[in-house]
């Protein structure tokens, strides 16, 4: 693939986007659409596309492109859409620092260390995987304990294997995908162990990656010890009680040479910290407005930097919005500030954006704390919607149109998801495919 590079890195751009994964690419596109003239996207890899390039499985793009694509196919479309709009791309580069006046310190093989001034900055650095230290698994520290994403890179990018007999801790989507991928490569996958009483990834991945391949999923069970001086030799697993304390009496050893970790993603917020942005303690990403602007003027954020998404399609859509916000900011067409706060209530962990306006249409993304089915989503006392089920691994999306808030004059709306045990069932207003219903049961127009 040919990647155009700016022959000369300009000292000033209207919008600089940090990260050329799906979020950054969409943000750059959005910025151009909104009228920003000179837009630069910076990525640390030698090719744009981000983590999608190693996600060679299908399942991407149903919402955003209306067809099922593999990760690299999705990336290619996003790259083409962006480059068509004459966006400069600086690959193999890294943003060392961003000052509050939006001066970026960039290092790259092609241009050395340089400062670049930006009218607006979009942070789209994505997420990183949680590692062993984050959950403090006791035991030795041999080689062979690795994140599922690293194993994915080994298999899909280098044509190597992470090991011969694998145990997977955590049922995040990457772990589920890798369980299937490794079985297809002839690796023995002993099982997936999940601390929580429910899977963490998308239900479709549990079905298509585990059930269809006969890989057992052990819920409420965790790895309590890693054995092996040089390379993993075995792990000890044990079921946990309702307070997540391992029941060691029921522990058992599993011989294996590899322990893959799929125990969650964390927004990669090095630059957000450097900028001193206000961060949300729940998402650990920056607090954003409905145009995805952070607590610093002209600094926007989108994608997994803000909160962990389940589908890349939503990343693209959210990031388009962030790019448009950045474009509007530099062309002086920014809209009026948000005037309604969404307060997470029962079984709602967070809402992004946490504030909206009564003037525009908004897509609000939410995560729940507990599985619940059937249930009702309530927006203050002005809206109610029945849902077949909600699940922590699956993001909820809610479209809020201005007409819907016409009669609303308050400042805050509480969002609750409550059980619907005895109520008579009402059919959803719009027919959705079964796949969609699983993915975003709340993805209905309000």
């Amino acid at each position, binding site marked *: 693939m040919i990647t155009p590079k700016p022959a000369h890195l300009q000292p000033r751009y209207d919008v600089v986007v940090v990260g050329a994964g799906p979020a950054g690419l969409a943000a750059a596109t959005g910025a151009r659409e909104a009228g920003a003239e000179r837009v630069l996207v910076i990525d640390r890899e030698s090719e744009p596309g981000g983590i999608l390039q190693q996600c060679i499985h299908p399942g991407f793009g149903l919402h955003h492109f209306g067809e099922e694509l593999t990760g690299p196919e999705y990336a290619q479309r996003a790259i083409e859409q962006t480059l068509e709009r004459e966006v400069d791309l600086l690959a*193999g580069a890294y943003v060392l620092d961003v000052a509050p006046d939006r001066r970026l310190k960039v290092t790259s093989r092609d241009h050395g260390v340089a400062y670049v001034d930006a009218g607006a900055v979009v942070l789209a650095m994505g997420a990183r995987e949680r590692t062993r*230290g984050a959950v403090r698994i006791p035991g030795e520290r041999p080689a062979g304990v690795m994140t599922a994403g690293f194993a994915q890179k080994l298999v899909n990018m280098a044509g190597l294997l992470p090991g011969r007999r694998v145990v997977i801790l955590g049922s995040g989507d990457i772990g589920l995908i890798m369980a299937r991928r490794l079985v297809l490569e002839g690796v023995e996958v002993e099982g997936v162990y999940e601390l929580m009483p429910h899977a963490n990834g998308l239900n479709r991945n549990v079905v298509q990656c585990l059930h269809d391949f006969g890989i057992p999923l052990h819920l409420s069970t965790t790895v309590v010890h890693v054995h092996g001086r*040089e390379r993993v030799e075995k792990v000890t697993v044990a079921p946990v009680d309702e307070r997540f304390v391992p029941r060691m009496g029921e522990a058992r050893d599993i011989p294996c040479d590899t322990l893959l970790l799929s125990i969650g993603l964390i927004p990669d917020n090095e630059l957000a910290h450097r900028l001193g942005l206000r961060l949300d303690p729940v998402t650990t990403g920056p607090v954003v407005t409905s145009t995805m602007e952070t607590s610093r003027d002209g600094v926007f954020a989108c994608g997994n930097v803000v909160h962990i998404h389940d589908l890349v399609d939503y990343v693209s859509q959210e990031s388009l919005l962030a790019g448009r916000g950045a474009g509007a900011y530099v062309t002086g067409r920014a809209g009026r500030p948000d005037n309604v706060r969404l307060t997470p209530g029962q079984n709602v962990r967070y809402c992004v954006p946490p504030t909206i306006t009564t003037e525009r249409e908004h897509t609000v993304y939410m995560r729940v704390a507990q599985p619940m089915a059937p249930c009702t989503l309530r927006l203050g006392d002005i809206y109610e919607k029945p849902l077949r089920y909600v699940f922590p691994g699956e993001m909820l999306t809610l479209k809020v149109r201005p007409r819907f808030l016409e009669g609303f004059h308050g400042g805050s709306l509480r969002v609750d998801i409550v059980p619907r045990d005895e109520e008579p069932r009402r059919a959803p207003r719009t027919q959705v495919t079964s796949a969609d219903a699983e993915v975003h049961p709340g993805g209905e127009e309000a």
Partner: protein
Amino acid sequence: MRYDVAVIGGGVIGCAVARELSRYRLRAVVIDKECEVGLGTSKANSGIIHAGHHGAEGTLKGELEWRGNQMWDALARDLHFGFKRVGDLTCAFDEDQRATLRKIMAQGKRRGVPGLELWGPERLRREEPHLSHDIVEALYAPTAGVVNPYEACFMLAESAVRNGVDLALDRTVTDIRRVDHGFDIDVLWRRDVLWRRDVLWRRSGPQGQEMVAERIKSRFVVNAAGLFADAIADMVDAGGFTIRARKGEEYLLDKRLIGYVKRIVFPCPTPTSKGILVIPTYDGTLMVGPTADWSDKDDLTTTAEGSAEAFAGARRLAPGISEKDCIAEFAGLRAVSDTEEFVLGPSRVAGFVLAAGMQSPALTAAPAVATLVVDALRDDGLELVAKDDFEPTVPAPVRFAELDYAEQRALVARDPAYARLVCRCEIVTEGEVRDAIDRGARTLDGLKFRTRVGMGRCQGGFCTWNCMELLRERLGVPLTAVTKRGGDSWVACERTEVGA
């Protein structure tokens, strides 16, 4: 070939001895069972250069702590490893402990440790606002420092090698015999043959190496074999002591907490233990630990109990510290002699010198221990003629992250490899990783401990791949031959069909 001195053990003691020996016209070799120096007890060390006032009077540990302490500035300057005198605080929670503080202070003063001060709650709150308000008084010692212990090992070894010392790594000593004018040291060399096609498919298991028997001849032997110093000494009947392992677990915290505590914080020591500390490491990230439990000599496990103990102990000193901020943990083994004292100096076998029982404050004392060992060798008949061309310094490694804008620009203009980032958490460039390989790093851990690559909050998630590629490229080995820390610690293997 016959050596004048063979140093068994390439930990900080062995490396310091080797470097001290390299000042003289003689042939010396360092033998270590690991694939790089410093990967045993020295790596998993708290990294504290003790202030000089804690060690009891009349003990080797106490006297060498202060003597060694004063030697680190010159070493760090010459060898460019991270060393900083951050100072320490020993905290008292009640009147009894205040009395202990005064005893330690008096002891330090008699020894000549400068700058000791007692801080009341007000001063303490001003200097260290995040420490517990239950601390009624603290003893401040400005001479305490922190060092990256593995870096010190690498640099001491590099300096020794530059001045003519040989390294014999991946070699386990199996037997030592006294022969005329010296010793025969039998070693098993675990030679990695993983890149050979015919053994690739056997990847999993120790078949990836072949064992080669070798004999190293030397006139003198220095036993700096850490946990195994007792077994090594027994080979020539120079022992009569045992070494037991006391495990310490340590927990590293996210760099979000850099600056949360600025000095090394000790609880008031009990007769048996220095307790759980809060340690701002050389790079600023906080570490809590170490625990202290008797264990097997190969037990490097971290445990749920150890974690609970370390965090409970740390919270007593600084209540805001939480498990949630933990990014990595490790365990190390102290080599403890029966007497709890250093076993240092000549043995009952002429030419066989001991540097054993090296537990805390052995890191602090290491430079002083090295000079004592060389003195003992001379007393046993080793002739020491100073070299005129001894080079005390090594070239300073590039630390891109520590340079200012103009310096960084100049550096990358000279060599664009310094412009490509390999590790984003710790800001380490390709040029730095390449340099580390060229200076002896052979493994992912070797790179990590030399450059900090992979040490940050993502724990290698992003950079491991880049490091593997660079090792492959510079060492000319396939990716499947790249290891975490030598031996059977492979990272990736060939696709199944190769050996299915």
